[in-house]
């Protein structure tokens, strides 16, 4: 060591010598128990929606249910004559499973195009799979049933939905209000809400909903998630990530309709890192039948930009590997491919844990799909 280094070390030692802290271990234990209870409660509620397969495969990896497993098809309670929101179809056929990079104009069905890593700034739309004729794919944001933030508060993830091409924003909004088709996700908006109007001018999007929107009763943290799910969904459907959203209910400002926050001025997206679940898988779509190699795309916020993925078949890991997002510590796109023989699989993707497992539950995205 140089003399400078010695002086520095002495200084650091002296400056901290008298510093003490009294940590109340019991308070930490109580906080830990409370957080665990919240996670367990969320898991039970989801298990009740029924999905034994997901629970079994997932149990081996640390609890929760698998998002990405399609719920049995339910009639969409919110099909308005003007623009019904279609349930996520199970794609089949050569072109439908090939993702194309988002920025290009109309979706191309060329299955041979090997998309490079998406390098554009995240718009919240993800990588757009090829939409069936007459439809546009939109990203609809719901609560991720498997991951919470470290306080146990909800985080959002997104589901790709195909809506009538002429009215993608209305389609996305109605899909949001109707709830997720993926059993691993939760919708927070009350049932029966209708879209009365959507308008956009000068960076402000105005959404007018029917009075049923007032019926939401979800608690403070979930209320923030509920509001943000709408903001993220409509701003991404307009492809205007920076736009602000004003909510009207029956033509009047929503105000403090739900008791926790006031929404009387246009609001913007909250920061992605605070709002979204750390790993979002866009393709393969939930329950999709795809060719091999399987192209996996999505967006993740990973420390050091590294992700670990596993492919599980009938409860047995058949492949694993690592992938990089285009940038660490913020939301950035990722893409990798996996060669798989025909069969049904569950894929999990998780950020590499910088603490080597010490930093608590690792947020994981799951997705089931079939290789033909």
């Amino acid at each position, binding site marked *: *060591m*140089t*003399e*400078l*280094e010695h*002086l*520095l*070390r002495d*200084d*650091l*030692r*002296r*400056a*901290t*010598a*008298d*510093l*003490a*802290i*009294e*940590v*109340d*271990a*019991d*308070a*930490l*234990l*109580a*906080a*830990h*128990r409370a*957080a*665990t209870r919240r996670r367990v409660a969320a898991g039970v509620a989801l298990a009740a929606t029924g999905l034994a397969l997901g629970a079994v495969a997932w149990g081996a990896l640390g609890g929760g249910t698998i998002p990405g497993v399609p719920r049995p098809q339910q009639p969409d309670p919110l099909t308005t004559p003007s623009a019904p929101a279609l349930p996520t179809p199970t794609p089949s056929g050569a072109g439908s499973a090939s993702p194309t990079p988002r920025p290009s104009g109309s979706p191309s069905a060329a299955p041979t195009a090997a998309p490079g890593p998406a390098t554009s700034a995240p718009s919240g739309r993800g990588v757009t799979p090829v939409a069936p004729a007459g439809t546009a794919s939109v990203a609809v944001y719901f609560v991720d049933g498997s991951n919470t*933030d*470290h*306080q146990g*508060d909800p985080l959002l993830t997104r589901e790709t939905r195909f809506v009538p091409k002429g009215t993608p924003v209305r389609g996305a909004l109605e899909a949001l209000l109707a709830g997720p088709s993926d059993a691993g996700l939760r919708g927070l908006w009350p049932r029966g809400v209708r879209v009365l109007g959507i308008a956009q001018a000068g960076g402000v999007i105005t959404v007018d909903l029917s009075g049923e929107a007032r019926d939401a009763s979800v608690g403070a943290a979930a209320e923030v998630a509920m509001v943000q799910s709408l903001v993220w969904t409509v701003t991404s459907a307009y492809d205007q990530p920076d736009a602000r959203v004003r909510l009207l209910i029956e033509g009047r400002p929503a105000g403090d309709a739900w008791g926790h926050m006031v929404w009387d001025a246009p609001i913007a997206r909250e920061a992605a*890192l*605070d709002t979204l679940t750390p790993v979002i898988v866009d393709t393969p779509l939930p329950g999709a039948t795809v060719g091999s190699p399987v192209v996996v795309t999505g967006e993740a*916020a990973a*420390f*050091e930009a590294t992700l670990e993925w596993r492919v599980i078949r009938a409860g047995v890991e058949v492949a694993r590997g690592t992938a990089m997002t285009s940038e660490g*510590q913020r939301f950035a796109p990722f893409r990798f491919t996996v060669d798989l023989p025909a069969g049904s699989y569950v894929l999990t993707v998780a950020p590499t844990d*910088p*603490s*080597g*497992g*010490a*930093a*608590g*539950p690792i947020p994981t995205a799951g997705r089931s799909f079939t290789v033909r």
Partner: protein
Amino acid sequence: MARTHADEAFADFVRLASPSLMRTAWLLTGDRDSAADLVQAALLKALQARRRIPEQDALAYTRRILINENIDRWRRRHGEVATGAAFDVPSPDSLADRVADRDRVARMLATLTPEQRRIVVLRYHDDLSVAQVADLLGMTEGAVRASCHRALQSLRAHYPTPIGDVWSPTAEGERP
């Protein structure tokens, strides 16, 4: 609430590890409240993962969590559990001198970039090797050395140059 054996072990760990974590946290943040908050957050995360942490590595793991937590701007800043209080231990020396000393060091560290600061704290306070720091921060050893070198260059201004010893930029950090 009754404590289990595992809870008792954790309470012991908290007692033993907190002072060291607190010093590291203070050097990283320069103020006691932020440091105390950081220590509590790191301990809570360590608690959540306690079954996965080998007991003998618990301090190293928790320090790693603390560093990441400090880097981490993801966490929400509201609704935190107040579980600890930071304070000055009465010492035989004049408390005023100590506080002045601490202020000087805090100001000095504040002139570094966050990365340089982390490296300096881990190298010269926690006595980690270049390899250990590189591993902890996910950097190459070369990058740690370079950053450490730049940190020392800029800290030099805070120390009087001793007579007869001109610090050579190339020798820093490498001499035994």
